[in-house]
């Protein structure tokens, strides 16, 4: 195993449950170097273990070369009509303002749960890597629009530094074999399947190399925003 691979294994063992995510102002302040050193260190520590915040930060940094483009006047005019303040809310905002003026305004940045712990791309494609000697097997489950899932398999031989063809992969549900494919150019794509428990079996010639179980299910205890 390469050093980086080994380090990833070690950090995945160490990975603890990330604490609550910083609010958006804190996160933006972090990227603009506007936080106190203590808070900055706290956000960076959180970032190490929170994939959701990592994704947000990556997308933020990837949209830095801002190229402002024209937006249709029709849409602009439409969104301009969206703001409909009412008198009660105006009074309420005045009361809120009065209270906020008399409250203590020291360092108010705090860590609060602001979004779910899972990000959209993780919802769409689920991937996994496993070593089934001598291959590095990458499995992907792609969520299609119509509640069906497509399973992709890729086998790479690190000794030969190439994708491996000729490997047979069987997709089974329970004892029933749904499909059996031979990898071409290292890859195979199975017919879409519904949610459930599946088994991928890897065979080379007549040797059984190993299996990967895939469980596609509804998530329990969705974290509330």
């Amino acid at each position: 195993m390469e050093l980086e691979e080994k380090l990833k294994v070690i950090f995945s063992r160490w990975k603890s449950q990330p604490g609550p995510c910083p609010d958006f102002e804190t996160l933006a302040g972090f990227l603009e170097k506007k936080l106190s050193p203590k808070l900055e260190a706290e956000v960076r520590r959180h970032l190490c273990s929170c994939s959701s915040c990592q994704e947000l930060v990556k997308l933020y940094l990837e949209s830095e070369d801002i190229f402002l483009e024209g937006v249709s006047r029709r849409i602009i005019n439409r969104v301009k009509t969206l703001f409909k303040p009412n008198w009660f809310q105006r009074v309420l905002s005045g009361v809120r303002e009065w209270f906020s003026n008399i409250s203590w305004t020291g360092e108010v940045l705090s860590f609060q749960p602001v979004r779910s712990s899972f990000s959209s791309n993780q919802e769409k494609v689920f991937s996994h890597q496993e070593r089934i000697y001598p291959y590095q097997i990458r499995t992907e489950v792609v969520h299609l629009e119509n509640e069906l899932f497509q399973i992709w398999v890729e086998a790479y031989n690190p000794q030969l530094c190439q994708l491996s063809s000729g490997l047979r992969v069987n997709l089974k549900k329970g004892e029933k074999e749904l499909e059996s494919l031979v990898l071409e150019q290292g890859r195979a794509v199975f017919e879409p399947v519904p949610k459930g428990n599946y088994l991928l079996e890897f065979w080379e010639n007549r040797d059984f190399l190993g299996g990967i179980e895939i469980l596609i299910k509804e998530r329990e205890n969705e974290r509330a925003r």
Partner: protein
Amino acid sequence: MSCLSREESQLLDRIKKGEKQAWEEFVDLYARLIYYVIRRTLEKRGRKEHLREVDDIFQAFFIHLAEDNARRLTSFSGNCSLASWIRILAINFTLDLLKKKSGTHLEVEFKLTAINPTKSPFTPLEALEEREKLEKLEQAVSNLNKDEQEFLQLYLSGFSPSQLAKIYHTNPNNIYTRYARLKEKLKNLLKSM
């Protein structure tokens, strides 16, 4: 200290007071930025073919901001620039919407179920040696200080060196150098064990 300019602060105050003209000024100021960020997020999430969604998400985002007397917008307390905060909000809003569109919330578990023992890469002795090596490395990593461990974790979690440079407020060369030094330090730690 607030990062808001006087104009921005006045604009938010006027929106808070329910001035429609202020809302329109806000739309004129930030519409293009928001539109760009939503489009870019969709592109980066591999939704190039769904670019017509930009208009829908754009309008939905402004509805989100305008709700409840623009409470979300006026809750901004100025601890970062208004533009950066809006960018993060728009990215997160787009991601949330994509998630909702993808239907039910799902998860997939993968588990290695069986390995043919005759096909194992190592003899039992080699496997033991490999495990010992990993344990030694783990011990070496635990001897690094917290900052160094965090740096390695972030380095290995998919950020590019130029992105890490922005996270560490430095330049990419420093990131490469720091990583190379840490690798060297780990090697020395391993030698000394």
